[in-house]
């Protein structure tokens, strides 16, 4: 059985799967080029054997929801995709379960302000209760974990309150290197 991802050449969530599997194979975060190349070569099969991969962020999650176990028994997704689904549908199907890899990677959505007005907006996004509530609607965790947990609780979906054992992905250049290796393997 394979974990289904999006297309690693085009989508960040699949790149995070590559980061995690490279950690698992290497026993630690990859920190140099030769290791990056060797490890990527090893895990390339995890991508190649999937055959066609969707190249939009919700691609594998859409299949997970609508086609289900026959096509996508395990989908590697952002937590927010499943939480957003559960909130919108007020629940999930009985066979849908969130599993957290250990360790995992937390994607921090960062707002970079380029001027004063943007800075003010950034501040609002961070502190305004209404805006933070909307972020939760989209399945994101916010500073106040309690609000997040309370919202999800009503859906019946089980989420981890605190995601422990978090690693960082390899450095940008090394990630790019690994993606190149996998991409090359995939076209062969």
């Amino acid at each position, binding site marked *: 059985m394979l974990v289904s991802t999006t297309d690693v050449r085009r989508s960040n969530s699949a790149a995070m799967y590559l980061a995690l599997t490279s950690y698992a194979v290497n026993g630690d975060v990859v920190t140099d080029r030769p290791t990056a190349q060797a490890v990527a070569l090893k895990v390339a099969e995890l991508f190649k054997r999937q055959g*066609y991969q969707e190249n939009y962020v919700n691609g594998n999650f859409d299949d997970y929801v609508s*086609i289900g176990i026959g096509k996508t028994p395990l989908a590697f997704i952002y937590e927010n995709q499943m939480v957003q689904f559960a909130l919108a549908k007020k629940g999930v199907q009985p066979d849908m379960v969130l599993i957290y890899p250990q360790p995992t990677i937390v994607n921090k959505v960062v707002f970079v302000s380029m001027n004063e007005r943007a800075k003010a907006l950034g501040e609002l996004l961070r502190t305004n209760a209404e805006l933070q509530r909307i972020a939760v609607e989209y399945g994101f965790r916010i500073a106040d974990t309690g609000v997040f947990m309370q919202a999800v609780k009503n859906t019946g979906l089980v989420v981890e309150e605190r995601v422990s054992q978090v690693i960082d992905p390899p450095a940008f250049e090394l990630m790019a290197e690994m993606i190149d290796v996998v991409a090359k393997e995939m076209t062969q």
Partner: protein
Amino acid sequence: MNRTRALAAAALLFTLVACQKAEAPPPAPTAPATAASEFKVLATSDLRDAQPLEEMVAKATGVKLKFTFGGTMESTEAVLTGKTDASAAWFANAKYLLSDPQGQARVKLQEKIMLSPIAVGVSQSTAKRLGWDDPAVAAKVDWRVITEAARSGKLSYALANPATSNQGFMALMGVVAAASNKSEALSAEDVDRTAIAAFLKGYKLPGDNSTYLSEKFIEQQGSTVNAFINYESWLLSLNNSGKLREKLSLVYPREGVSTADYPFMLLNDTRRADYQKVVAYLKGPEAQTWLARQTLRRPTNVDVVATVADVFPPGAMRVELPFSPDRALADGLIDAYLNEFRRPIASTFVLDTSGSMAGGGRRAQLVEAMHYIAGGDASLTGRLAKLTSRERVWMLPFASSAGAITAFEVPAGREQVKGALKGVQQQQDSDAKLAVLADVRAYADALKMTGGTALYDSVLAALNHMLEQRKKAPEYQYSVVAFTDGENNVGRDLAAFKAAYAQLPEDVRAIPVFMVLFGEASEADLKALVAVTGGRVFDARKASLYSVFKDIRAYQ
């Protein structure tokens, strides 16, 4: 997609690869003028039954949806090359398009609308004979069992052309996966040629599209065919139509089916707002319920699934066959199908060389047509229209009477792996093949136009010629293709032709007559002729040479 809107201004910390385009900031709102104009959608022909959506969408959203239907292959090529003015495309399966970087660049947004797995519809009596009427046995039927039933003559099926349609191609892929004992990461070397040949022994009703195949299947069920491989939706529709001699039992091959997921794809970014309205409607309960109940496709909206569950056969989990995006495999398989596996084509080209053909650029059109089918067009579509290896063509020019016949036979492509049982590759034309193609073009160049038009006499002569040839080589698929401006003025008239045709042996009916019409003449008589002989009239003034020859090929 929704997430995008909320965080359009946010940047991901780990922006390692360019994320898909749905995450790009939306463009400036479009001018109101475009809102009123048509929203053209290039759709694969199996979506013809969804055409009432045009009106439903207009009513619900105000967007004037307008479908243009085409085969999977030509539609894919139209999007890849940008040779379409459609604002969106809607295909049963767009995986080839979307695994190509150029295709990815053309598609701005995509959303899967509905689902239909490819299944084998087996006449109930045949299912009983094979033991497949027992659900426990049916659940174990895989492509290997299907291939064996086809090889031994127990299963004879209708299927859309594997070289031009998704259903046909995916059926071949199922056979390849089963025979290679792996479903993942198939490559061109994995193709078991013996298995393909065995499977194709049961291929008795070819065709270009599901509408045509359904009509023919209704006529021929129980005589030439007892199974239909197609999308579940078309098979269920046939079962519900009341037109079948007996209903079909649906078998879903155990090791994997391929499910059409109907992505609706935005091509023209300036129509993004309209696109989003249409998608919201298509994924909403009204359209999803209509699609499920009327066209028998499974909803992707999970809220609708339970309410329409009664429409679909209940069943266990169906494993999805991974789709191999390997172009070498696809191209090799299609080439092998056309040049080696399919029943080879033998046809007489009846060429109008009368004086009237000299005018109005008609001679040039005829010569161009010959150059097209004997030329070097290596595009997706060109390969389908071209003369294929093993093909036999007899040229029968005529004017005031039928002229002398010249024979051409296209030899095999470049020797690939002689006698190899496994592996396919895209085929290069051999020197011998190129030489024959050049001869065909030279023959066309030398045609002189003079005299009257004994069209019906000449078609009759061609049919007689094909009957003779068929006695010598029954393994070929015979047809007559006439190129004419249609002004019959010498020899038999239509009534006399019909009388003479009635005197031919009855199995002449298996030799269709295709008319490729140039010039201004009326089509009425030609249509009356093909109504008797079987076949079709193509207007070369209105349709591209590709579409003419692709269609002729599909019926051959």
